[in-house]
């Protein structure tokens, strides 16, 4: 098997993992195992999986509340994510964050941020730290089309450009901010034009094509690592599900959703993988199903954080030496 094909199979596996994982999440939400706000990534898997390929272990990720896919693709364990959503202390945030606040120091996954736009300045700071210390790491900051209307987007883009910071801005343009269609959010809907107004290099890519996203992200990371400053990557995508579990989807036509589903990134990739057999797919599905079940089992078996720890970590346990 060629390396390229093996890699494609790996991408497929990662996308299917996210898909199945989240389908289960939806079920578990109905069963009230998961609570709070939960935002599914289904339909957008190619973006997270494609982008993460371009990152190295030492890079950092700053994500949103729609981050299960990013976390999985970044290599966080499904168990720690599921346990988090179950509110168990074995969760990646000790059960304190839930679906919107996945954190992981090991993979430098800085959340799980639920204030739209609020992660951008954090990413600026992480990149600034790297730049000041001469590290050639990338900070990958992911946000939605809606976030780009917030003032912090403007301020952060300007600062990244002004200080030539090693940030990869990834906009997941899924055409809606909750129920607000792109053209009700932005007077200019070609989002790369916004990047241009800061002299930040930019590209737009088909976010339903994982290979295209990966290639674009690789090129973007190369730009950033070579010291040329920030890069803005728009990934045109679509969410197949509701905004969150509470959304009656009054704002879009079923037909539009169906149209986009035809571009589902998973079958799209399947068609591109040479000689992909039904058996191979079934094998992946089986592995993934096992992994998801294992994650759920891990979460079920998890324990609750002792109530006595409620105030722990409001401040650090101790001051460092």
């Amino acid at each position, binding site marked *: 098997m060629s390396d390229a094909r093996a890699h494609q199979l790996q991408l497929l596996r990662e996308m299917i993992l996210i898909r199945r994982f989240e389908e289960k999440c939806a079920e578990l939400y109905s069963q009230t195992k998961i609570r709070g706000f939960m935002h599914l990534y289904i339909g957008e898997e190619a973006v997270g999986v494609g982008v993460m390929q371009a990152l190295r272990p030492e890079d950092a990720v700053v994500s949103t509340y729609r981050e299960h896919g990013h976390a999985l693709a970044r290599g966080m364990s499904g168990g720690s994510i599921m346990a988090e959503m179950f509110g168990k202390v074995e969760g990646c945030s000790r*059960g304190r*964050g839930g679906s919107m606040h996945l954190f992981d120091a090991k993979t430098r996954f800085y959340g799980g941020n639920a204030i739209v736009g609020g992660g951008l300045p954090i990413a600026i700071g992480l990149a600034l730290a790297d730049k000041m210390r001469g590290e050639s790491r990338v900070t990958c900051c992911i946000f939605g089309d809606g976030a780009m209307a917030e*003032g912090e987007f403007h301020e952060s883009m300007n600062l990244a450009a002004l200080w030539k910071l090693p940030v990869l801005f990834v906009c997941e343009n899924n055409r809606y*901010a909750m129920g*607000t269609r792109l053209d009700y959010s932005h007077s200019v809907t070609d989002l790369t034009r916004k990047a241009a107004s800061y002299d930040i290099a930019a590209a737009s890519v088909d976010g339903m094509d994982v290979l295209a996203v990966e290639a674009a992200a690789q090129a973007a990371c190369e730009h950033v690592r070579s010291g040329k400053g920030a890069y803005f990557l728009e990934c045109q995508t679509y969410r197949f599900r509701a905004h969150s579990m509470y959304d009656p989807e009054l704002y879009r036509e079923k037909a539009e959703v169906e149209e986009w589903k035809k571009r589902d990134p998973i079958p799209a990739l399947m068609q591109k993988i040479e000689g992909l057999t039904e058996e191979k797919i079934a094998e992946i599905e089986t592995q993934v199903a096992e992994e998801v079940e294992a994650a759920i089992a891990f979460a079920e078996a998890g324990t609750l954080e002792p109530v006595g720890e*409620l105030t722990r970590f*409001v401040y650090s346990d101790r001051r460092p030496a």
Partner: protein
Amino acid sequence: MTFREAIREAMRKAMQADQRVFLMGEDVGRYGGCFAVSKGLLAEFGPERIRDTPLSESTFVGAGIGAALGGMRPIVEIMTSNFSLLALDQIMNNAATLLHMSGGQFNVPVVIRMATGGGRQLAAQHSHSLEGWYGHIPGIKVLAPATVDDAHGMLLAALQDPDPVLIFENALLYNMEGELGADAGQVNIDRAVIRRPGRDVTIVSYAAGLWKCLDAAKQLAERGVEAEVIDLRSLRPLDDATLMESVTRTHRALVVDEGWRSGGISAEVSARIMEQAFYELDGPVARLCGAEVPMPYSAHMERASLPQVEDIVAAVEGMRVRHG
């Protein structure tokens, strides 16, 4: 009628009666409102008066202030009180100051509504009860309805007010059912209200916390302690008279607030009782507040972060209130 419907009904009435009134905020229109408060209003009033805004809290709140200066009567909806921090510059530095610093020339009749509070496992960026904290700011009024009647009538009153009014809607109350009289109109927003009379101890609360206090009062009554329960309703200004009159009768007070304790509205209520009714007190005013933590997601930890009925009962019992 639910609390949610009561707010919607008030908006509808106000928009029917006054062309200057309009609603603006994220997803108030096509989505139907993040908590469905404005559902249906777009169909009735159209996108000019039910305005979906981009994600830009500071500017659409500021635009509400500007539109108010320009003669409109905007209702601005912020999805959740945590997000209102993005607009706090506009609220404190503009809305709250303009009338005073212009020497009385420019008043700002804007109404800013937002959801608030914990109890829905939304964790540390969607759950805080910041309404008491807003009560610190001179130049604005801060309302916190607990009943269907107030949800409706306070909004109507706020729209008649010449000054900026913030209304905090505890999201746990949206589904609460209540009666709304056919002739229900605006309510008095200056006074606190005694929701349950009692002679042994005064429990002061508001919004969602009020209902826990009323439950606790019932349990206490079974144990022979008659608690008077006061609903503050307005967190700025506070109605000192109602508070002091009550404490003068009961000689004991407990303040229950889901917000953080330090420097919260509970501190202010306690300090005012200290100043105005110290010699009436048989013991210190007690406070039962939200734990001073970023709100955790997990159900048991969130529950532990908020005052519960049994905590209220225990707190009153801890005050050694003399029975009957």
